[in-house]
């Protein structure tokens, strides 16, 4: 079976984890078998799925959905064992920790191990869809480029054999999609534009889409000319809406997710966004 991969990135604070959770929930509702992975240990994905304590081993969250997080030391042990074929690493546990120190300082090794885990889950073919809550846009480049960097740096060694299939899955437009989440505001839009340009130039990922989050609905009325809360709220809304629309015009936005007024738990936010994803497909 051929799994698909959705990598969700975006500038910090745009709601990337909520959108990643929504993709997982929407796919589950379609009856797909889904794995959701938080690529940042201790990130926000778990809370949005109603399971704040994610572990390295995927754990079921209701029918058809499992979720996990990437603990780097464990990912490294699994990586060496399963992919590089170095057995019995448990017996050299301290060495694995030391190796992690190296991996966290040496360029690209850490990223290869992290994204390697995600791609391995795709390669195994036991899921219909793997959704990864990935690094923010500021760092996503070093993950997407990690396999290529390793290929350029390493002349020999077993890690070389691994990076080839990683690059293949990443760059396959039928399997891998990078979703860039943005807000309709200046800084996130500019950062998204820069990321799109970089991704298109490097040709590392199969396909790319832009999702705008917290988009206000149109006011659907004239702003009244009198004083008072009705007019004030209308004037603020209209100004913010116009501002948002102007920034949205800069990007090829595939989907707009609504601004959710008032207090919601992270799990409620993800379910609401999943509703919108479901309607749009």
């Amino acid at each position, binding site marked *: 079976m051929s799994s698909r991969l959705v990598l969700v990135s975006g500038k*910090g*604070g745009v709601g990337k984890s909520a959108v990643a959770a929504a993709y997982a929930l929407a796919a589950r509702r379609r009856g797909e078998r889904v794995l959701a992975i938080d690529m940042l240990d201790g990130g926000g994905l778990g809370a949005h799925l109603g399971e704040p304590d994610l572990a390295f081993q995927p754990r079921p969250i209701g029918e058809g959905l499992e979720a996990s997080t990437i603990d780097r030391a464990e990912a490294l042990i699994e990586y060496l064992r399963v992919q590089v074929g170095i057995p019995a690493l448990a017996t*050299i546990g301290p060495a694995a920790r*030391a190796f992690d120190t*190296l991996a966290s300082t040496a360029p690209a090794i850490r990223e290869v191990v992290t994204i390697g885990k995600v791609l391995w889950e795709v390669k195994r073919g036991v899921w219909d869809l793997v959704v990864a809550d990935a690094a923010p846009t500021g760092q996503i480049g070093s993950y997407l480029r990690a396999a290529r960097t390793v290929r350029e740096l390493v002349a020999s060694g077993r890690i*070389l054999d691994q990076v080839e299939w990683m690059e293949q899955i990443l760059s396959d437009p039928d399997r891998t999609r990078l979703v860039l989440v943005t807000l309709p505001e200046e*800084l996130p839009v500019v950062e998204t534009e820069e990321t799109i340009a970089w991704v298109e130039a490097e040709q590392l990922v199969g396909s790319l889409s832009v999702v705008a989050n917290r988009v206000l609905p149109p*006011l659907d009325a004239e702003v009244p000319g009198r004083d008072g*809360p009705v007019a004030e*709220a209308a004037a603020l809304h209209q100004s913010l809406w116009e501002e948002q629309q102007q920034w949205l015009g800069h990007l090829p936005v595939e989907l707009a997710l609504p601004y959710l007024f008032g207090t919601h738990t992270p799990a409620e936010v993800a379910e609401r966004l999943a509703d919108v994803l479901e309607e749009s497909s």
Partner: protein
Amino acid sequence: MTRALVVTGAGGVGKTTISAALAVTAARSGLRTLVLTVDPAQRLSTALGIAIGNEPEPHPEEEGLWVAMLDATASWQEVVRRHTDPEVAERLIGNEFFEAATSHFPASQSFAAAEQAATYIDARAWDLVVIDTPPAAGGIDFFTAPAKMADLVGGRLLRWLTGARLPGRRFLFDRTAKPVLRLADQVLGSNLLERIAEFFMDLRTTYDGVAKRGRQIERHMKRATTVVVTTSDPAPMREAVRFFHALPEVASRPAAVFFNRSLPESWIDAKPPRGTDAALATNLIRWGVEAQKQRSARRELGERYRVAIVTVPWQRRPPTDLDSLAELIESADGLPRLW
């Protein structure tokens, strides 16, 4: 004496704007004020009236206000050049691992920012230096960066490769002593490991300089007044709270929390008058719900941490000039004395 005001908070809450607004206000109250901004939006640079450079420039239209940008990209190169021999520095910067290894390490951006800020505090040319912080870890990184930098260049990796003592290069690759080296060789190829180790040996020459400067920076930052900027959204609130829980030893307790983009409390229970257009009534109710969420967030944080809460109204348009920046602080409620 030059006082320092450090503005922290999550990315995207308007931290850079609030920093600039506080600086304009301080300058207009008669203080010679320097504001150090990080990654300002185009419109804010325009509002500050100049093409912001790395060196402090007096604002052409505002007496007593200087502006400079904290440059993140050149930061590592500067750190390396400042703290080791020119020859080693150039070898490091030209090294194939330099960019990859340094871009990994967000603390370096904060370190460079803190170092630059400390330099301007030492210059004694200003009454107040307002410091906007890089968004990493809600600004906490800004305070912990000196220690982290010293740790990195001090050779965590090298100590692991060689043991506690730092021997000469020829002892580095004694594979019989370290099974993990044999493992690393198999996976990475031995050549890579040696090249990395050499890189870190060079980097270690910066240690004394970085550690000493780090201690000076920490002393400055401990004396600085800090404020936290947030909105009532859950993610920035978590960052703001983190600052109270994980307050680094080298920072003072925040003097205030600024809630940016606040809505009027009068909207909370406002009833649209009879006959109001349905769309407008719906609009008031949904923003009223939002205003209520904001009020709860402010109360909760204020009561739990006994800290001054500053309410900054949500502006219909982002500030586009100095007057609208000053207006942001004038319209704020609950501002304590910060300088």
